[in-house]
């Protein structure tokens, strides 16, 4: 009997652990955040819990982000809960002003926050974005968003950028967030943004997807043509202020010759990495290699990696093989 009590105790305690029963919470599937000069505005997309489904947008505003969230909570028919959040869309101007990290840290401190939600930046009006979020197929917006995010990642249109991933990169690597846009009234996810609001096109995001190992098979566009590539392997080495990037891949279809494809890819990657390093975006995580040569915090701080990274020189070599 006592062993049974011990076995059941965690289950019993967990069941008593919810602050509110499920039917008394509004699970926000998407959250849109923007900041004007005076105020924060938040828009949450929650189910209506009506027969037949459907979603509604609740909004809040306040002098601080927490005040805006509290205002949105007050406007909602039930207490807002973020444990089912799939998409966090933030106004790109907030990233440009340097307030993105604080916002993400504040959200991560919420007990109910789902850390696997995708983080996107957009320059579209956030209220329109929230209203445009509807399930394309079926009745569940959460499922529709999950499918859309997975599909775009597989295509190389976007890079994985969950709240957990972004925060755990720390000081040694810069995240590439998802670029959200509106196309004919629908939400479109393609391309990327750095954490400082620098936009990356779909082609540039696809290249990064190859370099970071997120996509092993991809269709890429270079200046004079395109190619279907697979089995990409990347080696990145930091040697003082020179970063060497070696990319090898197999082309299964290409409109270019091998030499042209290699040169085109190398030029595209070099241009992209140079632009990113000038903007201070350490997307390949060279800071990780730099940190491994330090033995205490003073040495790491003296290194002043964010500034040193801006002056990094790049050397890119690409090797292509295959039937194409």
């Amino acid at each position, binding site marked *: 009997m006592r062993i049974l009590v011990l076995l059941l105790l965690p289950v019993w*305690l967990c069941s008593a652990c919810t602050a509110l029963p499920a039917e008394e919470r509004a699970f926000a599937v998407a959250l849109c955040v923007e900041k004007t000069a005076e105020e924060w505005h938040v828009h949450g997309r929650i189910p209506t819990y009506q027969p037949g489904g459907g979603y509604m947008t609740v909004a809040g505003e306040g002098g601080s982000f927490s005040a805006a969230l509290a205002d949105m909570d007050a406007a909602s028919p039930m207490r807002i809960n973020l444990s089912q959040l799939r998409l966090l869309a933030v106004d790109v101007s907030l990233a440009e002003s340097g307030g993105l990290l604080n916002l993400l840290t504040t959200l991560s401190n919420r007990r109910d926050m789902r850390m696997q939600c995708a983080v996107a930046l957009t320059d579209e009006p956030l209220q329109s974005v929230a209203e445009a979020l509807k399930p394309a197929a079926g009745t569940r917006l959460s499922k529709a968003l999950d499918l859309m995010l997975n599909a775009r990642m597989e295509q190389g249109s976007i890079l994985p950028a969950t709240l957990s991933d972004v925060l755990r990169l720390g000081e040694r690597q810069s995240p590439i967030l998802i670029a959200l846009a509106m196309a004919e009234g629908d939400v479109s996810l393609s391309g990327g943004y750095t954490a400082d609001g620098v936009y990356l096109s779909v082609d540039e995001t696809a290249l990064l997807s190859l370099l970071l190992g997120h996509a092993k098979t991809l269709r890429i566009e270079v200046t004079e043509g395109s190619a279907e590539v697979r089995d990409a392997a990347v080696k990145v080495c930091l040697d003082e202020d020179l970063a060497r990037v070696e990319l090898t891949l197999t082309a299964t279809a290409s409109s270019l010759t091998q030499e042209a494809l290699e040169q085109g890819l190398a030029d595209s990657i070099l241009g992209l990495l140079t632009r990113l390093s000038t903007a201070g975006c350490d997307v390949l995580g060279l800071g990780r290699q730099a940190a491994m040569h330090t033995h205490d915090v003073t040495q790491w701080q003296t290194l002043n990696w964010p500034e040193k990274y801006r002056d990094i020189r790049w050397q890119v070599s690409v090797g292509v093989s295959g039937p194409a």
Partner: protein
Amino acid sequence: MSQLTSRAAGEKRTRLSLLQLLCAVSLWRTAVTQVLPLCGASAWWVTLACLLPGIGTAALLRWIMYLTHTDTLPEAFRAGLGKAGMWLLSAVLGALLLVEGLSGLTVLITLFTQGVGTRGTPFTLSLLTGGALLLSLHREGLSRAVHFLRWGMIAATVLIAACLLPDARLDQLFPLYGVADASVPEALKAGISLAWPLTLLLTGPCAKGDGLSRAVLPVFAAPAALLLLTLIMPGELLTRPAALADLLLLPAKYAPNALQILYLCLLMLTMFLAVGAAVQLATEQLCIPQKRCPGWLPHAVLIGLVLIQTADAGTLWELLSAVQPWLLVPLAGVALLCLPASIIRRKIV
């Protein structure tokens, strides 16, 4: 006779499981709440270093047992210092275990109220937990329950570690001497006594010969878990100012929801059992000189610990944190007191 022998062997094994659980939970709790916030990425090797004083004290006590040709610590102290020595040892170990039980209960209640968001005040939750513990406090029952559940707890731990391992990055171990505002000397001071429960484990009858290496394995669970935590999280997240409940939940904070739930269940179960173990062992230690233990004593001790939870949890935790670095001092003190007498006695014999 064989039935008696196998029963005795079984009770030894369950006793060992109880001590191992207490050691593992105590080390993990102290390392995560006292050492990790101070030194961040260095916490894993600082914790390993902090094991040394506890191992040294345990070695000293084992040497006293060897010099006095005894199998248990109370007998060794009785042989060395007489009945007064036995009383002294009982008082010291009993007090340490009571502090351990109080720390465990305070942390568990704080986890419920601030970490999980359970409905109820800290005192009502203490009553609830204490009530469940009262049911569980049975002389052999608790140790048997721990022994019965050990593989489940180990499996859950391994599963959590396996799910977190793909996010590990080797560079996050560097700089080895800490990140941001980390302070290794302060962390060493805070964690210097964290291995005091080792003295119970290494001086028990189970920790002899071949059994010693197996007995101490769970002790290294805390440094191994901290190493994994360092690999999966950058140092600036490890040293960010955080409340007690947030520190306990940090290992699974950035993990998927299912893994967070599993970690939370494992944490609650192990801490709950460790509080029961501390209370049971404390009453046993206090009753050793009298050679009999009233059946109501463990329950009375538990009720006392629950009543202490009426105090403000923050103040209580500050007090316990201030006491934590000094826990090894009385144990080392009594060991040094008994050692000369044991050496003299050995020479005489």
